[in-house]
Every structure is written in structure tokens, then in C-alpha cells.
């Protein structure tokens, strides 16, 4: 803490947190409840399975002061179902947001415009008809936003984004080495067995 200036700690910017959590019912609810309860502003939260069936992984982007990010990390670590947490904002990392953007393409100009714009992005047209087309892009969040801005004048009629997923570069990884407990009847702790 001593090496950082207070200035640094107090300015807000987007922080990307990774959390490895047990794949159990209610865990997403617990994490969401923590953010609501502590009044932390969530920009995006994604959750999905991992290479281990008993583990899920979350990428949480929050807009907070760095000092608050530490409190968030400490609060996440405290949760029983949270296995590991990292704040990768200041480490080299890869982050991706996926968007499906439905644009109006009911005349040749708009169709051409969409095609041309997509050439400048890691984007492609995945569905096209006489009325609308769907553009898919997977890229860093800011690039996705640029594309959206370019497409906007043509006429966006529907849009969906996954929210950011991220992974640190190099050998520093989230610790997924833990194996779940196996109960007498062969079921594993951590596997979904809700509402039998």
C-alpha cells in the first residue's frame, strides 16, 4: 500500500475481477447479493462453466476506486463458495465481449454499409435477409462499442452482449486444483442436484 499514492487509490476506473466459484445452486445469487448489499456498482457480470464440472467462473467488471476493489476482493474471498479471486485490471490479460447486433438492411445502401463496416472489425454477418442482418463481433469491449457506434446510424433494431470475459496472460492462473468431496451415495458436492 505504501508505494501507491492516495490519488491513485481514490480515482475510479473499471476493474476486472475473476472469481472461481463452486458450481452450486445459489452461488450466483450470493455474489449478486454481495454487490447489491455493499453498494458496489457492477458494470457486467458473466458466469459460465469451466473445464471442471464442479467449478464455474465469473468475470465481474466493476466501476470503483482501486481501494474499494480491494474490499470487494476481500469480501468475495470471504464467501464459502468462492474458491479463488483475482483482480487482473493491472496485469496483462485478454478480455472479450461478444455482441449480436441486428441492423436494418432493407435497402442496398444499408446492406453495403454494414458489409463495409464489418470488414474493419473482427466482425461478421451471420444472418442476412431482406429486412435485417445480424452482425456478430467478439473483441475487446471498447472495440465492440466502436462498432456499435458505427452501426447506429444505419439503424440498430436489437442488440445483445454477453458481458466481458477475461483471462490473465501467462502462467498465473486461478487455482482450480481442488477436487470435490464425494458423498456416500456417490453424488459429488458441488454438482447441481437441486429440486430432486
Amino acid at each position, binding site marked *: 500500500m505504501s508505494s501507491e499514492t492516495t490519488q491513485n487509490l481514490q480515482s475510479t476506473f473499471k476493474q476486472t475481477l475473476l472469481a472461481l466459484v*463452486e458450481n452450486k445452486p445459489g452461488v450466483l445469487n450470493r455474489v449478486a447479493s454481495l454487490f447489491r448489499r455493499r453498494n458496489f456498482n457492477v458494470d457486467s457480470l458473466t458466469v459460465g462453466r469451466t473445464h471442471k464440472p464442479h467449478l464455474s467462473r465469473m468475470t465481474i467488471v466493476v466501476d470503483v476506486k482501486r481501494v474499494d476493489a480491494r*474490499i470487494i476482493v*476481500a469480501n468475495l474471498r470471504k*464467501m464459502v463458495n468462492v474458491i479463488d479471486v483475482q483482480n487482473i485490471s493491472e496485469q496483462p490479460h485478454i478480455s472479450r465481449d461478444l455482441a449480436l447486433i441486428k441492423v436494418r438492411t432493407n435497402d442496398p445502401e444499408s446492406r453495403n454499409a454494414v458489409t463495409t463496416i464489418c470488414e474493419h472489425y473482427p466482425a461478421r454477418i451471420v444472418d442476412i435477409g431482406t429486412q435485417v442482418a445480424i452482425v456478430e463481433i467478439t473483441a475487446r469491449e471498447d472495440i465492440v462499442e466502436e462498432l456499435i457506434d458505427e452501426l447506429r446510424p444505419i439503424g440498430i433494431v436489437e442488440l445483445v452482449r454477453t458481458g466481458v470475459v477475461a483471462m490473465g496472460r501467462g502462467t498465473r492462473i486461478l487455482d482450480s486444483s481442488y477436487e470435490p468431496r464425494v458423498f456416500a451415495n456417490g453424488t459429488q458436492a458441488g454438482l447441481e442436484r437441486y429440486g430432486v
Partner: protein
Amino acid sequence: MLLSGSEIVMECLIREGVNVIFGYPGGAILPTYDAMWNYRDRIHHVLVRHEQGASHMADGYARATGKVGVCIATSGPGATNLVTGLATAMMDSVPIVAITGQVPRAAIGSDAFQETDVTGVTLPVTKHNYLVSDIHELAYTIKEAFHIARSGRPGPVLIDIPKDVQTEKIEFVYPEEPIFLPGYNPSLAADPVDIENALDLIRNAKRPIILAGHGIIMSGAMQELRELAERAQIPVTLTLLGKGAMPESHPLTVGMMGMHGAAACNYAIQEADLLIALGMRFDDRVTGNLKTYAPHAKKIHVDIDPSEINKNVRVDVGIAGDVKTVLRQLLPDLPSKTHPEWIGRIREWQEDGNERDILNYDNGEKLLGARVINDLWRYTGGEAITVTDVGQHQMLEAQYYPHQRPATMLTSGGLGTMGFGLPAAIGAKFGRPDEEVWAIVGDGGFQMTMCELATAVQENVKVNIAILNNAYLGMVRQWQEFFYEERYQSTPMVNPDFCKLAEAYGIPSMRVTSRDQIEASVAFARSHSGPVLIEYVIEKEEIIYPMVPAGADLHNMIRRPKPSEGK
């Protein structure tokens, strides 16, 4: 051994060392109550009169003993009635395990009779909770729940058990292996670098002060705290829940800090050049305005919960660890020091405070709450376990009943839960039957859970109930007097005749209206083997001084004028 889920619950409770549980039956928990029958000589069930009482009793039991308190309730309304007690325990880090019945698994989510999403409702007010959906997990879950409740920063854990899981039978094998939770590793010891940094700050400090909290008591670090204070001659201030962490008669104990703390403590904190905060969390009731808090002080903060470090107050050395372990790491290299000037300065503030003490005024015939508490202290030899409710009487207890031993002053600090006093006192008495237990309650809060009088009678629990009756929601009235131009909206109270009420329950009672009866009232309480109720009819418009208005600077206290300055 083929056992039902309910029997497994009993077997697991016994293995956790539980011999008393507080609860209330109902449909969804009935199988477990039925199983209790065969275990009734090993686990005593206390039938409460409202589930809130069960959660506070488990809480009082836990605070008094350091063990996990257990409460039990049925689904739906039974479970929701526990919520206030869970939230109270959560705020004050008290280990409780709450067991609730749930509708059968197949009915979950169907709005079945008495179905409530209890794990959902209690999520923010528990340290952790479970819905047990498979009987094979039941025993391990209970073991895990106790482990989580009592380890690290303790707290309440709830286990919701569907009715059909309670009745299902399996071959029971107790999970003997230790709990393994990959995502839960409370930190205990400090990094040696942090210890070195903390020692440096202590060596260089000229005006150091210790802020001792509940954590000292929970980790049993009283001896270590005392050694730290004595060797480095550092004065000690206490939080409300830290009362008992250091004997209050000790020359280095300055008193309680905060909103109604001793002025000397608050001034000392504001002028200190080093705060050593141990097992406390800089609650707004102890810091006042954070922007002006302890402006000259470097800060060392030891707390078992890493998320408390730098939460409210930015610190120079933050140590997430068990305070006893950390102090033991620190003590070997702690230098002997003296701070005669600093301590002299604090003495002056203390003397000024004594001069303003209401007990040094001529109060004529008035029976002051302060006097009642101070005399209770005198006549109980300062040795009772006092369990307070919330309000002016609570602050009077904190100010006028000095405690020498840990876990002898039990109070709802973080949540400030009215209605806590009586049930928590009953729970405390179950935990420490050899101690003299006094519930010190206001006329308002007492009426929130006074149904537990019946519990005290049914169980013949020897608690002495002191009601400080000012016919007001006194603490709120004080705020109205100070900040709302004496508009006493909804604070005067028409009360029942508390002595007649006691009589209806078969409880001996006494009404005290003047000071000369106080000694006799203590003798009266002691002369009965069951619960006793004493009503102290006190001054209606007493004020608790000093007071740091909410959000004000800690040193900007409203003080009682000195007698020389006129009243």
C-alpha cells in the same frame, strides 16, 4: 445404523457438544421434534414464546460461553421470525446455528403452505446458509455449519431442511474427517513484515492509544492485550462490545469510546499519534465523522476479517489475523516504554469528565437511571453478567457498570436490536448457570419480547430482570430533545403495571421508586431461586452525556455542563 434425517440432526448436534437448543415447533420441523423425544436426556429443548426469542437466546448463550448457540424453528413464519436474531448475531459476529424446517422437496417453489425461501431471505444476514437437498449431505453439512459459525470471524449459519429429508432414512456414518473448504481459509497469523512495521510505529509513538473490541474477547486475548498495554504503557479504550477485554479498574483503561463514550477516550483518540485497533471495526458509532477522525494518528488495525481492513478508516499497517495470535507474534519484541505526559493529559480529561458526572450533582429526590445502574454494580459486587436491551439504559450500563471480566456484558451493538435483552439473558443463564445474570432493559424494549417471561418460568431460569421505566422510548426522546425541538412524537408510553404483569406469570416482583430501596431490591432478587422482575421507576427525561451527534466530529461532543456552570 439406519437413521432418519431428524435423528442424524440429533446425532450431529451431540457430536458438536450441544446440550441445549432453543426453539418452537411446527409442521415442517415436526419430524425433528419427534426425534428429540428419544434424545431428551442429552439435548434439552427450551420452548420459547416467539422464534425471535429463540435466536436471541442462542445468541446470548453463545456470547456468554464462546460456544455455538443453536436455535430451531419451523418453515415460513417460524423461520422469518428468526431473522432479527440472525441479523443481530451477524452484526456482532456471534456464532449461531439455526435449523429450520422446509416444505418437502417436491413442493419447493410451489408456494406450498408455510413455504418461504428462507435461504434467500436470510442470505444477507447469515455468514453462510444451506438448503439440504440430499440426506447424504446432511451430516457433513451440519458439521460444516458449526465449523463456519465458530471459525474465523464467527457468525450465524442457517440450515434449511425439507421435511422429507428429515424423514428419509439412510445408513448413518458420521463424517469424522476434518472439514475441507477450499474457498474458506480464515487468516490467523500476521506477516512478519507487518509485525515489524507495527513495532516500528509503536516504538516511535509519543501519544499511542489502544482501541480494544469484541475480537479481544472472542479470541481470548485479554492477557496479551494487558501485556501490550502495560509494557509499552499504552492507555486502552474499549468499544461497547469490547467491555471486559481489559479490567475497567485497571489504571490504563480509560473507558468506552464513541457516541456515548467517555469524553477522555474520544479526545485521546483525536489527539493520539498512533491508534492500535484490535478486534474492532471502526463502526460509525465509534468514529463519528471519518474525515476528521484521529487526524494526527498513524493507524495499526488487526482484525480477523480482511474485508474490514481499510473499509472505513485507511490504515498504515493492516493485519488480517486472529488478534491473540498476532499479539503473541508482536509481544516478544515489544519494547518497554513510558508516556507519562500523554497519560497525564488523559487523566486531566478524565478528571474533567468526573466533575461533570451526574452522580456528583445534587439530584434531590430524583431516581436517576445512572444511579440505579451504578448501585446495581455496587450491590452485585461488579461481578454479574449483565445483558442489556437497547436505548438509554444500555448506555448507562456501559457507563456506570464497569466490568472486570470478559463476556460479562452482553449487548446488541451493531444492530441495536430492541427486544434482545430478556431472551439473551435467558440464553446466557443456560450457558453460565453459576453466574448471577441480570437483564437490564428499558420499558420499551422489554415489551418487544416480554412473552419470554413465560419461558423463564417454564424453565425456572434464574434471571433478574431490571426494567428501567422512564415511560419513554428514552433514547429516541433524547434525540427529539436535542435535534427535533422537543417534539416528542410517539415516544411517551403508556405502560402496563409491570409488577402485576410479573404476578400474572407467577414471577416475584418489586417496584423501586427511591434510591434507598435499590440495595433491598438486589437482596430481594437474590432471595428467589427463579426469575425476578424489578421495576425501577426512574426520572423521565434523563439525558445520556456526552453525546457525539450522528456524523459529527468525534471531539465535538455535547457535554453536560459542570455544576459550577449551572445546569
